[in-house]
């Protein structure tokens, strides 16, 4: 337990170089993609002279390293700049949109955990049975189903057909909790299906491994009840795998949100970064990447802490 502060300290130290590295890589990749934001800014009415003027006006004629350096210098002072396309402060854009993405991702993760883990346990404890076959087959299907297709099917039936859920949009959770959860349900379900499948498969195989271990066989020989063995020894041993897996799923949910937000017209961070990347609005892309890197690192840190609590050996590794 005493190693926990050291673990947190290590992770925090890693944060700075990772942020610099990630934002620089994203910035460089944006520059590698053909296209010039000045062309977008000049718009439908552009002339060649106007494009040149815009390049100078926005500093786009500066060397890449200078552009990145200027951005980083301002970011260190807490100023993430303004969108090239709409002049909106980047920090404001992120503050408006990130909560919607976090809500969908969290909601989705909860649904996936509540369904995926029991399915995995059910299949692992009945290996070779019809239930196992059914769970593994459904899980394979869940992994293969494209979330956008599922989203459209859900909207067509549950929104346009039965009018149970809104077809588009998002509501702020703090202002209208019921409306926010209703709006987020279909996107969360569409996103959750893949995660449910992944969790069920991974929990199943991890649990099968534990259940067939010598240690577990010894416990059974000692006459412990099957339920007690499953809860105290089986699931506890699987929990480290499960936590790591959930941490990885957070990244998956954030990337999956890009498509789902488009289908449901949700103003989230996913659609923001996709729109900005296509239009090479680099201050916005950099800002969102910065925040997402912090979130991913924070989630990984939380996973490490929980793992250390469940398995003290993890803190020293």
């Amino acid at each position, binding site marked *: 337990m005493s190693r926990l502060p050291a673990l947190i300290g290590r992770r925090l130290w890693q944060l700075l170089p990772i942020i610099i590295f990630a934002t620089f890589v994203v910035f460089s990749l944006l520059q590698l993609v053909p*296209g010039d934001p000045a062309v977008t800014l000049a718009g439908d009415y552009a002339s060649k002279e106007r494009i040149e003027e815009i390049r100078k006006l926005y500093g786009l004629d500066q060397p890449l390293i200078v552009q990145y350096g200027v951005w980083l210098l301002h970011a260190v002072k807490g100023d993430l700049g303004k969108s090239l396309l*709409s002049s909106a402060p980047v920090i404001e854009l992120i503050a408006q949109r990130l909560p919607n993405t976090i809500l969908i991702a969290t909601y989705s993760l909860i649904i996936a955990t509540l369904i995926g883990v029991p399915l995995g346990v059910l299949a692992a404890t009945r290996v070779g049975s019809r239930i196992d076959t059914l769970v593994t087959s459904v899980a394979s299907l869940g992994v293969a189903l494209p979330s956008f297709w599922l989203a459209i099917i859900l909207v067509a039936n549950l929104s346009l057909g039965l009018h149970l859920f809104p077809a588009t949009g998002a509501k702020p959770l703090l202002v209208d909790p019921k409306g926010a959860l209703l709006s987020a349900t279909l996107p969360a379900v569409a996103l959750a299906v893949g995660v449910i499948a992944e969790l069920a498969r991974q929990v199943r195989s991890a649990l099968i491994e534990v259940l067939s271990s010598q240690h577990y066989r010894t416990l059974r020989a000692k006459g412990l009840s099957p339920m007690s063995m499953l809860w105290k020894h089986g699931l506890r041993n699987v929990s480290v795998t499960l936590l790591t897996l959930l941490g990885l799923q957070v990244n998956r949910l954030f990337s999956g949100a890009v498509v789902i937000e488009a289908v449901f017209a949700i103003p989230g961070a996913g659609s923001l970064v996709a729109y900005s990347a296509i239009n090479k609005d680099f201050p916005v892309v950099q800002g969102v990447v910065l925040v997402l890197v912090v979130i991913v690192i924070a989630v990984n840190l939380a996973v490490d802490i929980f793992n250390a609590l469940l398995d003290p050996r993890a803190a020293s590794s």
Partner: protein
Amino acid sequence: MTKKDMNMIDRRDVMKGTAAVAGALLMPATGWAQAAKRGGTLRVAIPYNPGAIDPMTGRNLTDFDTLYAIFDGLIDFDPKTLDLKPCLAKSWKFSDPKTLVLELVDGVKFHDGTAFDSEVVKFNLDRYKSDPRSNVKADLSTLDSVEVNSPTQVTLKLNRPNAGMPNILTNRVGLMVSPKSIKDAPGGNIDRTAIGTGPFKFVSWQDNDALSVVRNQDYWRKGLPYLDGINFKIINELNTAVRAVVAGEADLAINLQPAQKAVADRSPSVIATASPSLVLFGAFLNYGKPPLDNLKVRQALNHAINRDEINKISAVGLGQPSSAILPKEHWACDAANQNFYKYDPEKAKRLLAEAGHPNGLEIETYGWADQLAMQRQEVIISQLAKVGVKIKLTPLAPQQAVQAYMVEKKGSMFISPSSAYPDPSQLYEALFGKTALRNPSGIELPGFRELLDATMEAQEQDKRKAAFVKLQQFVTEQALQLVQYISPAVSVHSPKVKNHVDSLLSVPKFTETWIDA
């Protein structure tokens, strides 16, 4: 043009302007007043985030989804015919081909309470013409200076004749912004907080999410607007926008594609409309370098494509197959030119052989990478392949394709739509002018400039039309573009939305729209 001609024009213009004023004033009291209901907030799904709500720094046609709600133009236009109508300028006349005099409406106030007058017009036009951030300088390239004659009269001095100037004043550079709002804003940047004299006041804008406006209670056109406000919901995915209307979460979705009409037609709870627009689907040709510097090759391409088939596949048959760049509904269009190039693969092969390509040729081409564009491009590629033209296509995101073809001058052809312009002279200049971005050849074919200048020198509309017909003929005969079809403007709305008109320019106005609650 003789002085007598000019005097006749003046009288006609004044008469036309007066009649239009009377019409505009009467309209709320007659046409819709019987049925129009006041109140309600219209929920409109639009596909693109505005570039800015400052008319000067916005950049895309779709910015107008919100601009005309907040701003009035100096001159207004009929959405279906583009005939000019009075607005903040109650009348206008050319006292000579280089002098345009505007008489302004008195007593108009901006949303911030400041007065609109001739000084405001001068301030705005000077700003549009010279501000470093202005994206619309080209619109005022023929404007030399603005003279304030009285609080309600200004004179625009032009550096060369430009009969299209009144049309241009219906667009961005004619939209009047409160000078106080600009002076009060840090750095004069009003990209997100602009203040106009329009029927609605700006309230808020969440990027790529929503923009809302509320009724201007002191609007100078009494009795208007009918709506209490408009909530624009920005939905990039067009099918999602249609679903929002079907689900009752939006009242109207605009700027859709023909395919969405087909989808919406299946739902009995909504009305889908397709009407003519100026948005053109074609391919830009670089006629400054081989192989498209050869007229016969360009003509062969025009004979090789089956426009009806492209229209049926790409626009669900709702577009207007054409080899000319204007729709037949436009006042400057000669419909005869629309069928100038008939589908004739044999003739195309003959022309290619005469041009020295009996075994066909390969053309390096850029295009858009989205699904609809790919579908259209594949049809064109297969049609051209039948006459031996192999298209080497590089599909890219629109901005990247523009960069490659127009800025870096790569390739010889770029399959892309073109935007609409209030005056056709602007469209011809933007497509074929020597310094036009869309003309990477950097050349103007002999005769083009004289014909374009003639359209700006002719004053009466019928004379302008004659000049445009000659220009259109020249552009079509020279096959300067591979026009495929003119796109329809498609929208979907709830039956309770009344008097929404899809304009030829694809720019909506909500002043007289109302909700039958």
